[in-house]
């Protein structure tokens, strides 16, 4: 953990020194082909989820009802063919359609839950890092307690107690990530807190809130964005896990994890239902991780190897 | 005959940004029992030379373009790793620049000295530990501290431990790479004095790398001045200090304050060392030399004998003596 905090410190310092940090970073990022490939795939997924939403809106859900959720028993468990390249599931629904329409759940829940965690963790971490001392101590001890509950276990507890509405699902993924993000934000804030320009702002009478939002957060942003982007992957894994256990997104919604849950029963007869959605999840998380790693290397070239 | 004979050593580092020419044809001889000082700026190739003798160039980037290093009649550069391991520590040992980082933090200092002994002598662990304790006493650290870890020692003490490791197997040749640069001035003198004592006691030859001319004056028999990976002047300590010939050497001397003559201003050498990826074709020093002529920029000067065992690499000295072939 210590090392991570030091890395964060050096990234924040760098943010101070080069004015063209983001332009530089983008230049370096572009050279990293693997990371670019990861980002392109993530962008494709974003386009798919927006496109499917638009299609649903334009066709008033006709495609969704006819192709994604409507049972078609003659095609039950049909293997991959030209007509259905990924085959069909236990109700004869085309898996490709279900995967495409399921993209929105993983992406939306993954990204929004991390945004929630970022707001929560960012707030707590910024306060802890900015004020230090007792405030810091209390907040970070509470965060330690949260960290002592395995994140998947906490997510299960939250969904069990509160039910599996979309909001609760978001909460169950976000809450366990709050302490992790709080730590990162705290470390970055601490590394910029005592810099000259903050002193200067304080000297001309800026209040704490203004200093935090106008001076500290922008300068501590780089490591926070990197960490957040790397966390989205694990959020997607969590949501898939919850759906797989049957306590996440409810069927017949085509969430990737819940397709896998149903697939378990038919593993003997139709391998493709259990293999393909999992590959989809894996490639998505992999792309996010590659893009996140690339972002980290681009924002702090010193850390690269 | 020379004890250690380096002939036309050329070393490059292959990096992502290009090829760094670190050493460009270094010729050096170290005689038995003598201390040769190697002086130069940061980045002149001093540490590269030391690592090259030890066979410790970074495997992936370091590349020896040409040259031989004869020790005891055998070329170190042609030796296998196994043979080199027998030489390292037992015949040639090295003291590193920064004592803070050159000791393993998770092993006791006793263990680290004993390891050197066990590498070369077929002895039991407790025998090796006993030797380690003796070595500690020798460098002025109580034997009881053998069980302590490096972080429990001060910088000067750590360097003593490093010296104890280097001398544990009684090597015939010692390379000291800026052994005192990282230490406080008061400690520097102590450590150097101790090294001199031990050197005399064990009759060790030494290559003392430094950028501090004062250290050279006090400790060395001969001195070689290195610039941009090339020896530009070398000779006996008195010859070089009293009758330096190369403009770079002169520059080095005039950039240190001298207490006896009142000067209002020091005269630093103008400019910077040339980019080792893009060295000048002619004399490497021509970019900073006030005597530089068109010839200096185009033609590479050879070492010229300017006195008994005193050589300089400059066209200005050409008339005075014979060119080294």
């Amino acid at each position, binding site marked *: 953990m210590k090392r991570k905090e030091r890395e964060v410190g050096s990234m924040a310092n760098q943010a101070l020194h080069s004015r063209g940090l983001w332009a530089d970073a983008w230049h370096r990022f572009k050279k990293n082909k693997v990371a670019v490939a990861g980002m392109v795939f993530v962008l494709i997924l974003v386009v798919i989820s927006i496109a499917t939403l638009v299609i649903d809106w334009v066709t008033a859900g006709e495609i969704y009802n006819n192709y994604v959720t409507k049972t078609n028993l003659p095609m039950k468990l049909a293997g991959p063919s030209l007509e259905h390249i990924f085959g069909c599931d236990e109700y004869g629904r085309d898996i490709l359609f279900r995967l495409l329409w399921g993209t929105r759940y993983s992406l939306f829940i993954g990204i929004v839950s991390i945004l929630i965690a970022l707001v929560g963790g960012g707030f707590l971490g910024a306060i802890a890092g900015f004020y230090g001392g007792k405030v810091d101590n209390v907040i970070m001890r509470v965060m330690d307690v949260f960290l002592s509950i395995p994140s998947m276990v906490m997510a299960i*507890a939250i969904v*069990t107690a509160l039910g599996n509405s979309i909001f609760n699902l978001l909460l169950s993924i976000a809450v366990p990530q709050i302490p992790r993000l709080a730590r990162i934000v705290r470390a970055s804030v601490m590394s910029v807190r005592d810099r000259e320009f903050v002193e200067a702002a304080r000297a001309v009478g800026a209040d704490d809130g203004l200093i935090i939002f106008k001076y500290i957060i922008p300068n501590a942003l780089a490591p926070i964005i990197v960490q957040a982007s790397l966390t989205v992957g694990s959020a997607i894994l969590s949501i898939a896990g919850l759906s797989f256990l049957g306590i996440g997104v409810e069927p017949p919604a085509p969430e990737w994890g819940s397709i896998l849950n149903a697939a378990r029963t038919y593993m003997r007869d139709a391998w493709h239902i259990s293999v393909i959605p999992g590959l989809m999840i894996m490639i998505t998380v992999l792309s996010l991780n590659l893009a996140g790693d690339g972002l980290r290397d681009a924002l702090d070239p010193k850390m690269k190897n | 005959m020379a004890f250690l004979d380096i002939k036309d050593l050329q070393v490059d580092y292959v990096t992502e940004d290009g090829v760094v020419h670190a050493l460009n044809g270094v010729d050096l001889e170290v005689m038995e029992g003598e201390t040769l000082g190697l002086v130069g700026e940061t980045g002149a190739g001093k540490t590269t030379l030391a690592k090259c003798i030890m066979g410790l160039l970074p495997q992936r980037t370091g590349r020896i373009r040409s040259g031989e290093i004869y020790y005891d009649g055998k070329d170190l550069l042609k030796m296998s790793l196994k043979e080199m391991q027998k030489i390292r520590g037992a015949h040639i040992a090295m003291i590193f620049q920064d004592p803070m980082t050159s000791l393993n933090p998770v092993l006791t200092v006793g263990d680290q000295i004993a390891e050197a002994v066990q590498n070369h002598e077929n002895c039991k662990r407790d025998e090796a530990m006993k030797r380690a304790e003796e070595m500690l006493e020798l460098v002025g650290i109580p034997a009881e501290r053998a069980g302590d870890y490096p972080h429990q020692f001060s910088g000067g003490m750590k360097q003593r431990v490093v010296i104890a490791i280097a001398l544990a197997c009684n090597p015939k040749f010692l390379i000291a790479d800026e052994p005192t640069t990282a230490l406080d001035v008061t400690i520097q003198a102590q450590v150097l004095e101790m090294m001199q004592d031990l050197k005399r006691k064990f009759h060790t030859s030494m290559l003392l790398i430094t950028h501090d001319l004062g250290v050279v004056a006090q400790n060395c028999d001969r001195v070689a001045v290195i610039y941009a990976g090339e020896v530009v002047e070398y000779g006996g300590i008195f010859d070089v200090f009293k009758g330096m010939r190369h403009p770079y050497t002169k520059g080095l001397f005039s950039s240190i304050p001298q207490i006896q003559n009142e000067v209002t201003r020091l005269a630093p050498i103008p400019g910077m060392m040339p980019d080792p990826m893009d060295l000048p074709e002619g004399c490497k020093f021509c970019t900073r030399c006030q005597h530089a002529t068109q010839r200096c920029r185009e033609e590479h000067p050879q070492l010229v004998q300017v006195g008994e065992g005193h050589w300089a690499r400059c066209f200005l000295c050409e008339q005075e003596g014979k060119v080294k072939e």
Partner: protein
Amino acid sequence: MWKYIVKRILMLIPVMLGTILIVFFIMDRSEVDPAKVILGDAATEETVAELREELGLNDPFFVRYGRYVLDLVQGDMGESYTYRTPVSDQILARLPNTLLLASTAVLLSVVIGIPLGVVAAKKQYSAFDNISMVVCLFGSAAPTFWLGLVLVLLFSQMIPIFPASSMGRGFWGVLRSLVLPSFTIAISSIATVARTTRASMLEVIRQDYVDTARAKGTPESKITSRHMLRNALIPVITSVGLNFGVLLGGSVLTETVFAWPGIGRYVIEAIKTQDIPSVLGCVVALSIMFTVVNLLVDILYAFADPRIKAQYKQGRKKR
């Protein structure tokens, strides 16, 4: 050192109280009325209200929390609605199975992950390094439960060598049935450990003390084990500890896939039957396991790094 360990154990108490408070608070948000669940649908409003009073469900939150903690200390975690037996009995019966699975997975990730990372680092940029790190990237991106499904497909259906579900009998039976689930959980942590080890080794390889060791003629194998690995392991230990949490979460999913009779499967079962005391008990048990493992890791850490050990020694002197 002993004082440090005792101190750390004492520090565990507030952390555990806090953990239980959070879990208890979350589960307390549940809409499920225990009285109704116990009495069944046929019960009248009156009898439900009576039972609520009897169970103390109408007491303020902190009173109930205090009662739960006091009971827990005495080993009482309440009664399972479904089984009508003490939750603690249910958990204790399953705990060894979960521990067996989790510790096998930790063992696998250490035994496979560390050597993988070491070799990859020593041969940086080689084909071995590239391939193993790509595999690790995939490994850490794959969902645990899906890996379970794929392993079952491969090694239980296509090549039937390992059982697809439940725990076998006898030593060999258990061992055979342990293979697939433990690998399923371990894969992502093997990947993490290998990547951490590699990064940490790459840092250590460049250290001056490695050159010092070479300069005294130490053979390369000894340099790797004694000088590099000893130092590189320090961050790896932390990583293994933190990963244990992921691993426990993974065990919930994996136990479900393989019908492994552990706490993870029990908690999912309990969720489906709205058996709140069991869910609470399981979450508390898993969290306590995680906390205890982290304590062990911290102590191990102090043993691995003399600088940390010395801090505590000094701390003792000062006091």
